[in-house]
């Protein structure tokens, strides 16, 4: 049970306070309700590039990092398809420094041409490091294009292509900021050795006078139901053949999401999971195989990926996966196995909650989903899933029409 208090400032900024007096530290987390899915298709990668620019100085503070480090603090940020999140950890005595820094960059950035110029290059190197200069690095670019024809999940957070980042202009940066980075589109979560009264006063003092901004009402084109299997073959300079299969699953806020999540655990969670046991250990078709999803807010992809043992034929490897998926469709899973994946969720949530940063971060995330209180109800959402729910969900998920397959062949 995570305790917290919640209030909203007059400008619409939602504030969550999680008191924990067992730590000397504090965390300040600002979540902005904007991600790569909100980008213009001609200017992809913008939300993430923008995250970099948030460290290039704000209207009253030329350097973001230095004063924070001087206060003994550390910070970082990440951008996903769904959201952008910034967080600071520092000794609780110095929490006001975090308020000062975060509020000034919510007020306005410095918008320096130099910062844009450098960060364009930095992001291009990030793009190369993770997606070009690595074996199989292009897989998600290819898979997203294959699986999504309409929804903006069809491009990666880093961007569709390098040129979109290279062409970013300062006026676009400004427009993006004043559209999305407003109090009314943000959630502030503060945790650690602080009191609610103290956070109220500090939030009023530093964030209270920032103009509210206009609420961004998201209206994204949703992906229509897939009507036929999508298949792509790639030949590339990699050492091993690999197989990727993605199935459209439900959105994060849908009740059925929990069944799909448990299915991914049954198939790929741990050394005793079905795919690992049968395909790696018994049949020796794959040298590794995983099943996972990204927990996307809009309808996401349940993914199975594996590298084939040298000499194994792609069709045989795929068939063996199909056999396991058919089993889930044909037979109700044993009670013990269902209990196992629920136990795994219980344990995972307990270990996640150990970190103050995770707690602050998750409170903001659940508030974005609709209500911070959902964090405390999350486990019961899993507990309520029945074997019949899984059976039903497996039929929908693993319908061949719902599948996206990439055969990734090693050249030579």
């Amino acid at each position: 049970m995570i305790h917290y208090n919640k209030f909203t400032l007059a400008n619409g900024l939602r504030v969550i306070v999680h008191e924990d007096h067992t730590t000397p530290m504090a965390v300040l987390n600002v979540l902005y309700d904007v991600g790569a899915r909100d980008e213009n298709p001609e200017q992809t990668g913008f939300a993430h590039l923008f995250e970099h620019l948030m460290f290039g100085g704000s209207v009253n503070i030329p350097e973001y990092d230095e004063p924070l480090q001087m206060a003994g603090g550390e910070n970082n940020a990440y951008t996903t398809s769904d959201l952008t999140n910034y967080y600071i950890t520092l000794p609780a005595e110095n929490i006001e420094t975090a308020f000062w820094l975060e509020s000034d960059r919510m007020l306005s950035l410095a918008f320096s041409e130099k910062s844009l110029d450098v960060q364009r290059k930095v992001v291009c190197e990030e793009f190369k490091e993770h997606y070009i200069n690595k074996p199989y690095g292009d897989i998600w670019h290819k898979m997203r294009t294959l699986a999504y024809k309409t929804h903006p999940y069809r491009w990666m957070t880093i961007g569709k292509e390098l040129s979109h980042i290279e062409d970013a202009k300062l006026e676009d940066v400004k427009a993006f900021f004043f559209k999305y980075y407003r109090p009314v589109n943000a959630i502030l979560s503060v945790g650690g050795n602080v009191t609610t009264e103290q956070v109220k006063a500090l939030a009023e003092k530093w964030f209270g006078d920032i103009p509210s901004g206009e609420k961004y009402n998201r209206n994204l084109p949703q992906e229509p139901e897939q009507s036929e299997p999508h298949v792509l073959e790639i030949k590339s300079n990699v050492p091993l053949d690999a197989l990727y299969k993605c199935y459209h699953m439900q959105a994060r806020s849908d009740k059925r999401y929990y069944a799909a999540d448990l299915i991914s655990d049954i198939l790929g969670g741990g050394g005793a999971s079905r795919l690992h046991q049968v395909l790696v250990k018994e049949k020796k078709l794959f040298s590794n195989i995983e099943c996972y999803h990204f927990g996307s807010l809009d309808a996401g992809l349940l993914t199975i990926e594996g590298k084939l043992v040298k000499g194994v034929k792609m069709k045989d490897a795929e068939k063996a996966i199909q056999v396991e998926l058919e089993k889930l469709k044909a037979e109700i899973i044993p009670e013990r196995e269902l209990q196992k994946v629920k136990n795994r969720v219980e344990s995972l949530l307990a270990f996640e909650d150990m970190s103050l940063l995770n707690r602050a971060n998750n409170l903001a995330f659940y508030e974005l989903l609709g209500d911070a209180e959902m964090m405390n109800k999350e486990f019961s959402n899993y507990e309520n899933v029945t074997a019949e729910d899984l059976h039903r969900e497996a039929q929908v998920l693993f319908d061949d029409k719902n599948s996206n397959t990439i055969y990734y062949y090693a050249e030579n």
Partner: protein
Amino acid sequence: MNRSIPPAIKDAVEFDISLKPYEKFTLDNGIPVYVVKSNEQDTLQLEMVFPAGTWYENQSMQAQATNFLMKTGTSKHTALEINESIEYYGAYLNRNTYHENATYTLHCLTKHTDVLLPVMQEVILDPVFPEEELNIYKQNQKQKLAVNLQKCDFVANRFIDQYLFGEFHPYGRVSSMMGYDALQREILEGFYKKHYTYNNCKIFVAGNLPDNMIELLNKYFGSSKWNGESKIQRLDLPIQPAEEKKFRIFNDENGVQGAVRIARPFPNRYHPDFPKMLVLNTIFGGYFGSRLMSNIREEKGYTYGIYSQLYNFRQVSALNIQTEAGRDVCEATIAEVYKEMEQLQNVPIPQEELDLVRNYMIGSILGDLDGAFQIIQRWKNLILNDLDENYFYNNINIIKTITAEELQHVAKQYMSPADFYELVVI
């Protein structure tokens, strides 16, 4: 309100950092158990440490394969049964091999401790190293290696350690297809019997413990002289650094980035210059605001990130600067790294920058000591290196008091570009 004036802060030097003490117990057979309790969560971490690292290998990959395969079959249970009995409770039994030690670590909800300890006992005391599992392991590790060998950063990490320590030294030895092929059951079994014995075991526990924890540990690990007594001698081995200093390697003709490594050997943690270098290294390339990051990422945009690190190896350490930079700016990156070294040698660090780094480092240690799992980690590093809390407090004192002159002196001694190995792998 004037937003350009920062709020007052409490300076790091004023923070009173204390390392919460551990409790020590001794099992009936003499195994030491170090404990840091906390009752705020319902979770527990139990780590068993053995002197079974790569240091002690007679043949490459022996230590890692032994450690890995212990969990793949006992005289009573198959790998699947072992995994199932751990994963059913949402627990994790992870294993790791390092240069000196090898470990088995259990993470679980406190309420499941008593059903998981017997499983852990079997894995530690009764592994049988099934031939079939060894074959799967060899095949899959070789496949993984084939993929990794296409990555410039992976290849660069292997080469730079070979230049620093020599390819036959445990710190420079690398995995190979031949090494995996040469592994045999008997080799693993022999290594296991010699290194995973009761008298070589240390246990570290943290978190929320069941009331009868020590009783449970005695029952499963303390009641016999399992695997007999075995004396492990650890002698330093001479390093054989490469004679050439500069290397350029093409691993992928079409690569769009190069992995840059610039490194030199450095005295180990017992040397008085080591804690001083920890501070200098932070300024140089050890945090986001470092000189390397400010210049090469934030000013020039040559890379997504550049760091320098001080190895924590026991016999001898090294200072290693690493980055992946655009293919056409690798040489420019190297030139800038040397410029920053020379700057540290020639110009004293400004007081403001030194104060900032002191505060940053102390704040970061304060954060690192947050929670029982983190505290036991600190203690483990001290205990396994035959150190105590005085070492920890001495390092903190150095962070708080070292002067710009002392740091410049350290830079002059250890940051001459000519002393560094230099490698680019494209």
